[in-house]
């Protein structure tokens, strides 16, 4: 039995895949979610929260696998003069692949700065929003 090779990823549908499937348009099939107008938007945001919390849960429960001990959070806080044991806490390290994590943001910032160095400053900084009404 090769059950040890199994993982939830091989057997089960992930949150992202599940909702990607649900939000598709398929000819001949009535999907009420896509008719929801602003409720659809609310549902999408809610779903993203769901996806993100499942990612965060994974990262927190797999700290050993992503070798978070190398980041030495405990040592750092002791160096910073923290001597109360209850205030040291447990540090959770996010991988740079977590969208929105500090290391992801830093990576994006570095990319942007590299572009500026290569091509010069941008001419236009454009932000677009739309009127919800």
């Amino acid at each position: 039995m090769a059950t040890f090779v199994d993982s939830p990823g091989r057997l089960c549908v992930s949150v992202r895949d599940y909702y990607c499937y649900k939000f598709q348009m398929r000819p001949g099939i009535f999907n009420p979610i896509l008719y929801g107008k602003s409720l659809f938007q609310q549902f999408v945001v809610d779903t993203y929260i769901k996806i993100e919390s499942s990612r965060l849960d994974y990262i927190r429960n797999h700290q050993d696998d992503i070798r978070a001990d190398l980041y030495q959070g405990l040592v750092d806080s002791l160096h910073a003069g923290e001597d109360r044991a209850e205030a040291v806490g447990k540090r959770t390290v996010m991988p740079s692949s977590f969208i929105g994590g500090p290391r992801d943001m830093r990576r994006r910032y570095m990319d942007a700065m590299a572009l500026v160095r290569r091509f010069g400053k941008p001419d236009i900084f454009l932000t677009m929003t739309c009127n919800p009404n």
Partner: protein
Amino acid sequence: MTFVPIVPDQYEKVYSNMPTDTHMLKPVANCEHCNAKRFEHEPRGFCCRSGKVELNEANVPDELMRLWSSNDADAKHFRDSIRFFNGHFSFTSLYCRLDSTTASWKNSGIYTFRAHGQIYHNIRSFGREDGKEPRHLELYFYDDDASLEHRFRRCREEKCQKDKEVIERLVAILRDNPYSQHLRSVGQTDHLEDYRVTLNLDQRLDQRTYNVPSISEVAAIWIEGSELLGQFQNSVVLHGKDRSRHGIRSYHGCYDALSYPLFFPKGELGWHMDIPKKGVSMEEVVEYRALQKARSGSEEETGLLFFLFINTSYTCTSMFIVQTTLIHGYFCRLPWQIMCVCA
């Protein structure tokens, strides 16, 4: 006569390069596995992981389908005020710590819905409180009453007549909802404070075929003092004597059904952990979970709280996570400063 000075236009370079035709995406064939409509440049496994994911289609009641898709006056009103109606009929309500500095037009340019910490869907016990009108799930208690007075009281004044019309139709549609059926049976009793409603959080239906949870699967009702029936492994208990709050977590299958009854009128399940992929049998999943449980000793209780600062822009549904805190039994330092843009 007007004098036009001949000065070279400094923006000439920009305007001379204006494209003459609109750029359009080329039509692409539908997905060969799940028949989803695809756009040009969309990655191959985007809709169904190249056939690995297969789920059932929603089975919408005819009357609700009319409200969603037709051009009748009441259907239009239903769709225009869809968030009002969903809030009216949802069993849970949203809880979060709002950032008051951005959630107003006065202080900040654009209204920004920014929450501190995690956003929760909470469900309340139904104990009576003086001076409070029934809300959310308590409204379902009295749906057998033909006058629907309890619901009409919550209509918006300016659109009262239209609201009433739609609410009447929705009550009729949601009569088949398994949660509604339970709650209506509670509503006919005199001693509400003696009653308990247990909601099953641990539903694991296979969603590759059309499956609707049966009435006995979603919830159970019993009277205080009688023996507690432990038929659900993981459940919340709602009391008739207090107004305690219970969180519905994102990994519970009933999350979508309780929050968006208009999308899932028959209590259809949303995502849960044990939905097998195509070609995987339910037994394999059960076997794997049992093995996992045996290996880790006991199932890990996810009692930790993640505090996210979620910044949901009302207009373009983007989120910024600013700061994450982790509480682990005892309070600990704010470990990270995070900024995130995900459109």
